[in-house]
């Protein structure tokens, strides 16, 4: 048996040696509940700071010339649910959005009804948590308008967006608070770049919550529910990625 020690092998062994001391240390430290909760409480600091410094600030809007030539789709690009597939085949002619929960007047709105409401059109930058960005144009009614129509009950504090897709076998959902819900750029977009939303981008309806990262922008929105607390909804942390991946609920950072 010959033993050949290469330079690369040595470097790798050295790095792995150092890593095997330091890294499991960090990984183990993170397994400590108190330490992890301390780090995770940074999210509250982010949310409060952002709310104090820019509660009503508008996300930047761009010119058509600034738009991405191609807009990357992420997450679910297809929905397998048979009812959804039927709606898609029919051009969502018989589809409707439900808005309920803690509201005085629950709403059921067809896609045409959503198109007939006053519209907002905005060219904004979509920032994915992974790091990439794409600029596109979105159009739809303001969420605040729908909430005014449905009249939120005083105890309502969050809006939960239930989606038609399953991601890795679990229902996708997201939630935002009332500051973002009534923000003038928070819209329910049915059109993107001047055309009805494509399936990959969340047809027929996608939430745009422009001051937060991409995973908050729920696609395939089927039902909106006003709630007092996020507890008891799926994993209780307010969203698919929050429940299944330790991602922050407040995604403005």
């Amino acid at each position, binding site marked *: 048996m010959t033993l050949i020690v290469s330079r*690369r092998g040595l470097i*790798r062994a050295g*790095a*792995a040696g*150092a*890593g*095997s001391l330091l*890294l*499991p240390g*960090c*990984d183990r430290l*993170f397994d400590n509940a108190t330490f*992890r909760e*301390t*780090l*995770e*409480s*940074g*999210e509250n*600091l*982010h949310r409060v700071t*952002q709310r104090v*410094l*820019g509660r009503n*600030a*508008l*996300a*930047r809007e*761009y010119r058509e010339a*600034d738009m*991405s*030539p*191609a*807009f*990357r789709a992420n997450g679910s690009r297809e929905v397998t649910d048979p009812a959804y597939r039927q709606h898609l085949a029919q051009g969502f002619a018989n589809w409707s959005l439900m808005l309920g929960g803690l509201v005085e007047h629950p709403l059921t709105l067809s896609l045409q009804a959503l198109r007939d409401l006053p519209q907002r059109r905005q060219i904004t*930058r979509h*920032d*994915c*948590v*992974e*790091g*990439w*960005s*794409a*600029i596109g144009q979105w159009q739809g009614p303001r969420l605040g308008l729908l909430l005014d129509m449905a009249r939120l009950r005083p105890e309502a504090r969050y809006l939960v967006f239930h989606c038609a897709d399953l991601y890795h076998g679990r229902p996708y959902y997201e939630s935002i608070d009332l500051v973002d819900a009534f923000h003038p750029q928070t819209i329910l977009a049915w059109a993107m770049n001047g055309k009805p939303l494509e399936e990959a981008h969340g047809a027929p309806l996608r939430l745009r919550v*422009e*001051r*937060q*990262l991409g995973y908050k922008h729920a696609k395939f929105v089927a039902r909106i529910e006003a709630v007092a607390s996020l507890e008891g909804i799926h994993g209780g942390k307010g969203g698919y*990625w929050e429940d299944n*991946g*330790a*991602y*922050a609920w407040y995604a*403005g*950072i």
Partner: protein
Amino acid sequence: MIDPAASSAPQGGELVRRHRWPTRLWHWTNAVTLLVMLMSGLMIFNAHPRLYWGEYGANYDKAWLKVGSARSGGGEQGYIEIAGHRWDTTGTLGLWTDADGKVQRRAFPYWATIPSRYSLAIGRIWHLAFAWVLAAGLLLYLAWSLVAGHIRRDIHITRAEWRPSHLWHDIREHARLRFPTGASALRYSVLQKLAYAGVLFGLLPMMILTGLAMSPGTDAWAPLVTEVFGGRQSARSVHFICAWGLVGFFVLHIVMVVLAGPLNEVRSMVTGWYRLPRERRP
């Protein structure tokens, strides 16, 4: 001959007070914080190992830097691609074997990231929590440095020091590893001042500003922060480049500490006490 003025100044071999407590505290806080920021930052980079210039940038757009893996001939190689030039980095970047012996196709290897297993979410939790420590520490330290005269006395580069002849002299002394001795070792040389000022007023504030520029929340109320860098993806690129600038500073810093006498240097940064190097015999 004995110079009468020299007898009152501290001499080579004497123990002197060198670093005040705010400097020592900030130094070691930063040592931990920057290591965590770097390693968790590399984990975040792994989620999308491409860099762009401008406001937008995703897979369909042109990346100026890319780390990945590709089939080549019968095998597979990891690579880094910068401005169209590709280097084979198999084993280190793009294609490597993890601690369990499994082949992974992420950009930076497990021994360079926090956490060691791929998790963008946990990398972000570390990174964004320690970002507060970095920003608050820098702000407090800059305020103290200004008030306590640290900047004026120790970092400020005088007109005489800016002279090319002085700079050139200092570069030559450094290259020959002839470091100051006796009382003159109490003062930073002009190259040291440039390095520390570059980190204090250049790299660290740039890291924080480019970090803020990537936040969609901050971009709404402080759009200028993103715009000065020419867009969010440019800010992400500058963030990455400045991070390696800090790694460069760290390497140089460690080399200089080792050359200057590591025990004495580390003691001065822990206890504040520093033994002045003895004057060289002619």
